[in-house]
């Protein structure tokens, strides 16, 4: 059963070249827009600093005030979600489900993998057996990539051999390479896996799609102990459960004590952003490991197979397919994943940059969303305007705000000329910027506290300095905001602007003392 919009030829459009004629022109213009806006802002700031330094200075002061207040506003959300996270982690979800009929609910976990080591794969599977949810109510679909080679297939076979009897069903797959209409990546793999699961497990065993909740995990995703109970509770108490996705909070704790400070700050920042968004569900879209009813997934044709950001795109597919009646339910319960860690510090930095660039490649959703809003007349106008604004502002601020605050703030002094440099405003500009940003950075105290509380216990062999560095690491924020925030954001938007589309990049999962998985697509 497909909705009207999902039957259109552009429902699963991946890029402008998938279209033709007027549609192509519109879509291509929309692809250009985010990068043009960001570059226009940066170039505009430079030109304004040169030709009207007083105006530029006032703009920078206004921006600093905006940033300070935004930081305070988001900090309130972060603190609130921290309370909710703590609460949700403290309650007994088994008890919460006692009075709700849930025996029919089955969790289907799709685990795509590429060239990860057997230790990484096994850790993910084992965690499912160790969760408090009855593993006999879990279906595991372990889907390797054919392009990963024979070794990957052997890993899948070994894991299947060891764990298949632990679960209701265990389906091991090899996603064939070069299927028509697919680009290499997680999206094509998990869509393939979902369809195979439908045919070979759900239909064969007469399992209702409506009773199956699908969690699309990464191979390093480790759900916390009552994740499935918490998810089940949210699923069953949600009146629009078939018009909703369910989003946990990703915490990058698997290897947090081994990762360098810069990787930890980067990872924690991503966690904090998700926590903030969990308090603003109307702005939330799916990210990374998320869950959805199989019924819904089937109706919209699974995840897109021809683009990179399939995790967020599934939400936008659903929003358009159901004419705006779709939402993300924030469950404020954690899943643990790997922070970026490679065999050397420089490789780690490189991987962080690439991962951030892949995440900010989510900008490819902007043309999809706006194009869909143009085509789908049934979505309320206010919802279209608000959603468009939120998305554009989000990507624009990611790639420009840190640059404006930490770098471009000096431009009026450098380019403004003697007349401007003799004004009292030129002397006060760096002082005002410094003072406002110092106030804004005070929010880092909250960040440091929350990140400290989310840490797993310090392992034996890690000294007190490791704990101290977990607090001191937050001084790196101005650096990470630019190098691993603004620059990869600008990089992605520029690629989309010029039509150099990115392919999927698999984040290497490296664990100290284990074999290194090195794979890049």
């Amino acid at each position: 059963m497909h909705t009207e919009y999902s039957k259109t030829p552009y429902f699963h459009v991946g890029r402008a070249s998938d279209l033709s004629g007027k549609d192509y022109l519109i879509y291509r213009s929309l692809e250009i827009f985010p990068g043009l806006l960001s570059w226009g802002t940066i170039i505009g700031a430079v030109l304004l600093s040169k030709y009207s330094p007083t105006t530029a200075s006032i703009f920078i002061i206004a921006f600093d005030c905006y940033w300070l207040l935004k930081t305070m506003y988001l900090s309130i959300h972060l603190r609130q979600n921290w309370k909710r996270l703590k609460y949700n982690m403290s309650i007994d979800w088994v008890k919460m489900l006692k009075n709700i009929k849930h025996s029919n609910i089955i969790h289907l976990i799709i685990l795509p993998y590429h060239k990860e080591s057997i230790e990484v794969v096994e850790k993910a599977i084992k965690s499912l057996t160790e969760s408090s949810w009855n593993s006999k109510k879990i279906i595991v679909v372990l889907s390797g990539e054919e392009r990963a080679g024979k070794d990957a297939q052997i890993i899948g076979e070994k894991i299947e051999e060891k764990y298949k009897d632990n679960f209701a069903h265990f389906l091991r797959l090899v996603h064939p390479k070069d299927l028509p209409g697919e680009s290499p990546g997680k999206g094509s793999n998990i869509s393939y896996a979902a369809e195979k699961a439908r045919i070979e497990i759900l239909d064969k065993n007469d399992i209702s799609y409506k009773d199956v909740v699908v969690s699309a995990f990464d191979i390093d995703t480790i759900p916390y102990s009552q994740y499935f109970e918490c998810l089940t509770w949210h699923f069953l108490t949600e009146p629009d459960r078939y018009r909703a996705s369910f989003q946990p909070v990703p915490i990058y704790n698997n290897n947090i004590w081994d990762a360098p400070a810069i990787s930890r700050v980067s990872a924690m920042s991503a966690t904090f952003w998700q926590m903030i968004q969990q308090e603003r569900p109307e702005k939330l879209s799916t990210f990374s490991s998320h869950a959805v009813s199989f019924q819904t997934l089937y109706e919209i044709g699974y995840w897109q197979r021809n683009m990179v950001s399939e995790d967020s795109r599934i939400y936008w597919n659903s929003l358009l397919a159901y004419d705006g009646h779709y939402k993300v339910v924030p469950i404020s319960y954690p899943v643990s994943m790997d922070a970026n860690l490679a065999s050397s510090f420089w490789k780690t930095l490189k991987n962080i940059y690439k991962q951030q660039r892949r995440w900010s490649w989510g900008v490819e959703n902007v043309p999809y969303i706006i194009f869909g809003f143009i085509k789908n007349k049934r979505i309320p106008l206010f919802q279209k305007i608000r959603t468009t604004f939120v998305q554009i502002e989000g990507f624009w601020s990611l790639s420009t705000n840190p640059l404006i605050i930490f770098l471009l703030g000096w431009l009026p002094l450098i380019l403004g000329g003697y007349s401007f440099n003799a004004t009292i405003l030129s002397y006060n500009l760096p002082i005002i910027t410094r003072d406002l940003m110092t106030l804004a950075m005070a929010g880092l105290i909250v960040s440091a506290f929350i990140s400290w509380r989310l840490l797993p216990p310090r392992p034996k062999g890690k000294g007190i300095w490791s704990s101290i560095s977990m607090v001191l690491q937050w001084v790196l924020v101005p650096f990470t905001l630019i190098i691993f925030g603004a620059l990869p954001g600008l990089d992605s938007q520029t690629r989309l602007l010029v039509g150099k589309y990115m392919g999927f990049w698999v984040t290497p999962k490296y664990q100290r003392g284990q074999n290194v998985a090195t794979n890049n697509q």
Partner: protein
Amino acid sequence: MEPMKRHKRLAYLALCYALFFVILPLVVFYGTGYRIGKDFSVFRTGGMYIHSEQNNSKITINGQKIRTLSTFDRGFFIQDLKPQIYDVEVSKKGYKTWGKKIWIEKGIVTENSSLLLPEEILFIEIASTTSKGLESSKYKDIMELFLEKEEDVVEGEETFPRASKENPVSSGGVNVWKREDGKIIATWNTSSTKRAPYFFCVYNECEKEFEFFSSLLPIGYVDFYPDRSDTIIVTLPTGLYAVGLDRTPPQFFQPIYESSGVEFRVQSGEIYIKDGDIIGTIDLS
């Protein structure tokens, strides 16, 4: 536990918007020099920036101590000053006080640079012409300073004396030269992309050239004070004097070494003095 209620979030958002529209004008107002007086009148102030290279030097304005320079500062930035003339002094124990009358304009920062000379300038003898006292190569180099003449050959045959208009002494884009009438002129190298130094400007009006020193006594050797472009050292029959390139009173004029017939040269940040047979340096730190 549900997410924060929408109306609560909107309330916080509205508060942030309100704060933004209150804070921004106040900050811009303050940043451009506007202040509110005790009688709630609004007036615009200016500021001054006084360069100083001496840690722990203190600045007084109209006799009132304002601040002491810390290790990391390279000058005093003082604002909240009503437009008028201020008596500014920079002082430090063991150094002669530097003073200047500084005119403050609204919305403008008037810049100036202090120079603190030690109260007692130590002359350190290096050698004498009668007994060398140094390894001979260093002695030879210093002696040669006092022997060599700077000349500039232009158009094949013509040469120009040192510190003439055609062959000025230069530092940091500033040229200084002696006119035929004995007056000393400063010019700014306008081909430079940097802005003209503050001492070329009065009340925000800048000149490319100005006369800044004349003396009834004949002016001998002229050179820039080491590592500065706003102060020169001149030889007068009575000794060596530091003179500020300045258009606002009082002009900086202080003795460095008082002795008749003395000569000096500046090289590599050092001032070498030849007083009769004796050659030495002076410690100005």
